[in-house]
């Protein structure tokens, strides 16, 4: 089974990417082999692809795309799952299936944006602090990082999101603010030891510029752990985002979000259980998928094995 998949992938690689050198192809083959050794990684990849597909094509797939906009129909409120509403409707008469599909959008968008900001910022600060380790630059950056890391992430995110205006942007800001320090610390450790390596010392002797050393000598050697952490973090960002929207600090109505749907539904339990259960299953699905996927990426980039 596993071999088949990798074999197919190989032929596809050869056909499509014949411009790639043999060396690159070989690398890709090894990556795929490592990734696909665990069948859960493949499952994760499938879930990730399905989630992205749902998020991108939500308006096409969802049966009632108008139900995520300004829409109420109190005659159809609280219908249990049936043929025309497979997940039932909520107390406002909106299709839950449609709203679940659209929630994938917000969740993915949030994790992409948060990581797109937090990772570069965190990595850059980590590189600088690591390269200048022992100087006051290191002290300032790392003490600030320590302060952010000294609080449970969810608490800080809740506090920041709460003092800002409640909406998706605020919750993204909140999560971003608490996320960068983890990358700073990750990169700092690596950069500190790398900056003592001979190739960095060599580059310094040749007179390479500081940015060159940071980005061409040190950064490339830190990439694997960074990518692994990013892959694993997508699920966490989605989870924290859901927690924020659960208490009302995320997407505002009528735009749906997982956490918001679960907390709305919890008010109408147990009679309208479908309002809670389906969004809950959806969030478990997406987080599980990204965790499997992240594990696969870790296996793939892990040099030890």
């Amino acid at each position, binding site marked *: 089974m596993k071999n088949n998949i990798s074999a197919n992938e190989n032929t596809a690689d050869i056909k499509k990417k014949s411009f790639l050198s043999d060396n690159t192809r070989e690398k890709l083959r090894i990556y795929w082999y490592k990734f696909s050794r665990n069948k859960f990684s493949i499952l994760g990849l499938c879930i990730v692809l399905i989630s992205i597909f749902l998020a991108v094509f939500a308006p096409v797939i969802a049966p009632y795309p108008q139900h995520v906009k300004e829409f109420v129909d109190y005659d159809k409120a609280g219908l249990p799952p049936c043929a025309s509403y497979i997940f039932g409707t909520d107390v406002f008469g909106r299709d839950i299936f449609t709203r679940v599909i659209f929630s994938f959008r917000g969740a993915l968008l949030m994790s992409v944006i948060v990581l797109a900001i937090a990772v570069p910022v965190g990595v850059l600060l980590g590189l600088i602090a690591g390269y200048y380790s022992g100087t006051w630059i290191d002290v300032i950056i790392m003490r600030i990082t320590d*302060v952010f890391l000294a609080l449970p992430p969810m608490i800080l995110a809740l*506090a920041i999101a*709460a003092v800002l205006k409640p909406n998706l942007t605020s919750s993204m800001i909140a999560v971003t603010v608490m996320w960068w320090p983890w990358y700073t610390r990750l990169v700092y450790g690596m950069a500190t030891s790398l900056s003592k390596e001979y190739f960095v010392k060599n580059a310094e002797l040749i007179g390479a510029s500081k940015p060159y050393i940071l980005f061409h000598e040190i950064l490339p050697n830190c990439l694997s752990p960074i990518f692994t952490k990013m892959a694993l973090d997508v699920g966490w960002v989605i989870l924290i985002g859901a927690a924020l929207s659960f208490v009302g600090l995320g997407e505002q109505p009528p735009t749906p979000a997982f956490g918001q749907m679960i907390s709305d539904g*919890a008010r109408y*339990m147990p009679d309208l259980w479908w309002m809670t259960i389906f969004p809950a299953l959806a969030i478990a699905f997406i987080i599980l998928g990204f965790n499997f996927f992240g594990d696969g990426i870790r296996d793939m980039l892990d040099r030890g094995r």
Partner: protein
Amino acid sequence: MLKYIIKRLFQGIFVVIGISILIFIISRVVPGDPARMALGPRAPQFAVDELRKEMNLDKPLPVQYYYWFKGVIKGDFGKSLNTKRPVITDVKEFLPATLELALLSGFLFIIFATIIGLLSAQYRDTWVDGLTRILSYVGIAIPSFVVAVLLLLIFGYLWPVIPTLGRLSSNITPPPTITGLITVDSLITGNFAAFFDALKHLILPAIALAIGPLFQEARILRSALIDNINKEYISVVTGYGLPKGVIMRKHLLKPSFIPVVSVMGLDFASLMGNAFLVESIFNWPGLSRYGINAMLNKDLNAISAVIIIYGVIFLIVNIIVDLIIAWLDPRIRLGGE
């Protein structure tokens, strides 16, 4: 060892000061006049001005911070907008409930993670191991607030055998407050009815908090055990003919716990964060529920207090975790001394 602890505490103080600056900045970014908010829209201007002076709001920001932090050290966080009384009074009232819950769920996940970890290492690649593995994924995938909502659905409506809300049934006389932990207080005073009632109320929120980290820790323990059993030194010490118990304890269990304990600090952090939602769901009158109410109501003094207190608790937990690791791992312990 002592030097190490002192160093950690010293670092900790700086971190707490850092947190206080951070939270002060956050709380002053919010628009609005704290004095006016505290007294209400119809309060006469002279009273508001008086309070502004009392709260040092008429001075520049760094000076405000100085006075504010001076108060914080003495436990004076100002008044809560919500409850209209000193925040420290609220904290004293709500903190024990949170500690009780956190301790029990921490206890639950350590004990059960150990058992399940041992079992799945013992019966490696059997159904026990498989089930643990699947459950560990479930633990990751289902956020604790969802677990809490589901537990509420099951035990609140479908199968009402355990109370789902609050700390104590209304028909039980609460024990006198000694430690503030109802289970402990009731045991001290010999009030067993209250003890078991309190325990029953604790169980669901504790499960909701513990279930996520539990199976993951079990998995980590399992891998560590399996890794270590195959290491050479085990066969060496076995060859020396050391008693099995000693091998188990000293050479297998102790090193295998190192990765578990180091993850525990992080797990405890997520547990504390999740408590913010779980306490609200179960109407648990703890500091986390107080904190989330404060956040939703923009009750800045209360928010600051809750965050600083959680910062201190988290710091202490991390120091304890480091100490345990040092005790487990002779390399660190000896290196540290």
